């Protein structure tokens, strides 16, 4: 008997972003508007690491977010293609979980605690100030990509209330002045630019 061939193959030169796909594995994630090279790099490894079954959905989403910092649409398309599913279906799964982000996070992340202790000690006002200063709602990122603002229900350090976390560093007993200093440090475009240059 001849070996049954199940590998997906095609002679097409360039691929189009996948709409659907009831089967199929392997294959490249072609796209008309060139896909994000970071996604391509991640997917090249991920497609060998994860089996093309629906049970790989969440592990693959986690892997993509770890590698890329969030879930770009190209990554969701790639996962859908790998799993033989539709991108909307994979997105439906991902969007159910709070752990997944769909927007590129800012270079800095500010988290304001909205727990009871922090709130009564002015956490709410801190959040209002931040929203006014940065002109974004919680969960969003400033247009220049500098800062992502988040809130958390309780950080668990109520003795230090109100808490503001900047890039993983916990700041306790924050008042308006301290907050401004913090944000200034985070959002200073000069500093970011210099760092970019140094890295280039």
């Amino acid at each position, binding site marked *: *008997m*001849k070996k*049954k*061939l*199940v*590998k*997906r*193959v*095609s*002679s*097409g*030169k*360039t*691929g*189009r972003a*996948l*709409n*659907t*796909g*009831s*089967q*199929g594995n392997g294959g490249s994630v*072609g796209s*008309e508007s060139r896909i994000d090279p970071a996604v391509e790099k991640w997917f090249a490894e991920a497609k060998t690491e994860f089996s093309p079954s629906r049970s790989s959905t969440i592990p693959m989403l986690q892997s993509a977010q770890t590698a890329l910092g969030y879930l770009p*649409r190209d990554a*969701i398309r790639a996962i859908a293609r790998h799993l033989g*599913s*539709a*991108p*909307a*279906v994979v*997105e*439906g799964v991902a*969007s*159910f979980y709070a752990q997944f982000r769909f927007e590129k996070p800012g270079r800095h992340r500010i988290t304001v605690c909205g727990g009871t202790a922090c709130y009564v000690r002015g956490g709410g006002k801190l959040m209002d100030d931040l929203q006014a200063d940065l002109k974004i709602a919680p969960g969003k990122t400033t247009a220049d990509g500098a800062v992502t603002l988040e809130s958390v229900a309780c950080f668990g350090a109520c003795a230090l209330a109100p808490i503001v976390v900047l890039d993983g560093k916990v700041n306790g007993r924050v008042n308006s002045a301290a907050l401004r200093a913090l944000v200034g440090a985070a959002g200073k475009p000069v500093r970011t630019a210099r760092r970019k240059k140094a890295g280039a």
Partner: protein
Amino acid sequence: MLKLTINGHPVAVEPGKTVLDACRAAEAYVPTLCDDPTLDPYGACRLCIVKVEGLRGMPSACTTPAADGMKVTTEDAELQDVRRWTMQLLLADHPLDCLTCAQSGNCGLQTAAQHLGIRERVLRPMMREAKIDDSNPCYAIDMRKCILCGLCVRACAEVQHLGAIELVKRGYASAVEPFGGGPIIDSTCESCGECVERCPTGALTARTQLPPQKEVSTVCPYCGTGCRILLGTRGDTVVSARGDRDAPVSRGRLCVKGRFGSYEFVSSPDRLKTPLIRTADGFREASWEEALGVIARELKKYRGDTFGGLASAKVTNEDNYVFQKFVRAAMGTNNVDHCARLCHSSTVAGLALSFGSGAMTNPSDDLLLADVILVTGSNTTENHPIIGLKIRDAVERGARLVLFDPRRIQLAEIATVWARQKPGTDVAWINGLMHVILREGLANREFIKTRTEGFEAVEKVVAWYTPERVAQITGVPAKLIVEAARLYASAERASIVYSMGITQHTTGVDNVRSLANLAMLTGQIGRPGTGVNPLRGQNNVQGACDMGALPDVYTGYQKVADSGARAKFAKAWGVELSDKPGLTVTQMLPEAIDGKIKALYIMGENPVLSDADLTHVVKALESLEFLVVQDIFLTETAKLAHVVLPATSYAERDGCYTNTERRVQLTQPVVAAPGQARRDWEILCEVATALGYPMHYASTAAVNEEMRAVTPSYAGTSYARLGAGEQLHWPCPSEEHPGTPILHREKFTRGLGQFHPVEYRPAAEETDASFPVVLTTGRMLEQYHTGTMSRRSKGLHGLAPGPFVEVNGDDAKRIRVKDGDSVRVTSRRGSIILPAKVGSRVDAGVLFIPFHFWEAAANVLTNSAYDPTARIPEFKVCAVRLERAPEAAASLSEST
């Protein structure tokens, strides 16, 4: 059978049914919002809760399998109380604007609330943000009214296999959204409307439909699949369309054309309502008497071979029977043909030579039984969408799809092998497949020996076609040829599906015969799930061919050159008949220019847009001394006529249509004809009578009786049987015969299957320095043919408003055009200007233009060179030049 007791009443259901099915069998109403018999049970709405003796709690009836001896209670105070609170939770964020809601009266939520006696909203309203998506011209989305039952999401995934929409986020933020949350029009949605049909509330509503007073089932007027539509009417206006779930072919499924494009044209104000007679400055309205008088006076001059008739693949079998009888008996010539010449004449000729019958060998449901489906030259999901769904169903179940198509059509996304051959190289790759099959010992020697003849010649010819040589000719890598051959030949059951990508070539008959060779070589024919399956393009193109609207055959393919057949028809019709096979449409038009054809009678066709090299077609029609056009609109062709006669549309007539699977389907009129429009066969009878050949029938059924008396393959397809719901595929030679869904089972219609060696010949027009690009033409999902019907639908027009040319990104870059820029496409015959759609759907060096749009008519460019046997023009290949159009191009279309 399982025996249950529902509210004390005994009921029996089949194993596998649910408690909900049992409740319905017992006629006990159980409110549900998320159940649909065509979808898997889901259990989301929690309204169909019941009590089952011995089971704890209140299980949902839709997800609980029925079991023997179950005692079920569907309603008591406690159940109703829980249901009421569930409803209150649903109503807490639902607008109570029932009076102005499109779904009112047909709303599942409303029905359930009424049943539960809910009179007020008791919970604090928590209205969702208005999220109205107005992007789709066929249906409206108002997410405020969504109850998250999941019916739309499941229909999209389970029925359409698309997954264009999904339930996203959770809790209060839950919503149904396409990928990325953008407007639905930018998603992969195919606008089939399966979601709209199932939505229980006003969240998804069809824009151009109203609740009907009455619904009548008829056959869809578009492609040859033969789906049945329930047309809803108010008086004589068609106001809605939905799938007929009792229909065996489509089982309730419809595509965007059937659902949103099948009714507006029927009641269009542009419909022809009176006969028109040409005057010096246009047309004037005339009475039937006057128009028929003019026609009789003129046509008398052209009896014999200076007259020609074009029948129609859009009208019934009865209309076509009467048409060819009119041409043959009243006008005394066999010059009768129709647009099948332009789509599948290569099939009719090719398969008749190979197998003895030129039609689809297996029914479309057989695709679900195939292990491997080889699709070539058919963009099935766009042009035969419901058969396309059957292919998707099959792939979902594990069948493997092998696709040979120059374009990256949607099927390429689910194909195991997709090979992109250069247009016009089909014989080469098919011979290549056979070469590999023979080399690897995968041929079915037993089948070849017992069922076929002429194999040796084919064996000799294909020996040259090694995968490497084939790769040179076709551009398909050798390894794909090998893989495709192995997949097809080693399958238990493999089916070939093809369409105009195979037939519309100067090598059309060769292509068809090559596919027939391939099927016979492997014995993939004559069994369920196998066969050679040409998909016919129009709703009655099979029937029009069967009725003898072809120049060389009477009904049922009885040859006019055969003296026995001729004598039979001469006797039946009481007139001497010509023994000379007539001219094809592709011959009649050039002969009109030469003055050999002087008068034409065209019924329901628009050759000015549909035929190749249309500048030439217009010239031919203008050269005629007399032209009669019988149609429902004043088409581009009708505008050239001397007399125009108003006919009925599909919704206004009765009669039979034969779909692509040879299934004969009976229809009834849905509404009355507008103005003075008459049925086609009635008009023809009057014309014939006025010409001195009396034709009278009491009814359409009487026409059918006469037709069956002279047509052995249709003899058993009586109105009585069809009306009783029998599903009959011809040949059906007697009233007792069950019909023949699968052809060539024990032996081929011609006895032994005839192998025919075919060598590859290049297309008639090859690319050269001045015309370096290959143009291929075709259709698209949202439009149909020359647009006479489909372009009158607001929905379809909104989805596909105008012409475009698909250009590969590399070619676009070369001439510096971006997506949407105007380009000029020029062939040796003409030139058109239209916007470019840049992408990778076509390969570099290939262009695709749909032929629906008069503004930039693809057939200005196409080559009328035709196949020597079938005389089908080469619509699929011509050499063109692609240029950037001057920015100030004022006119959209012009000729050179």
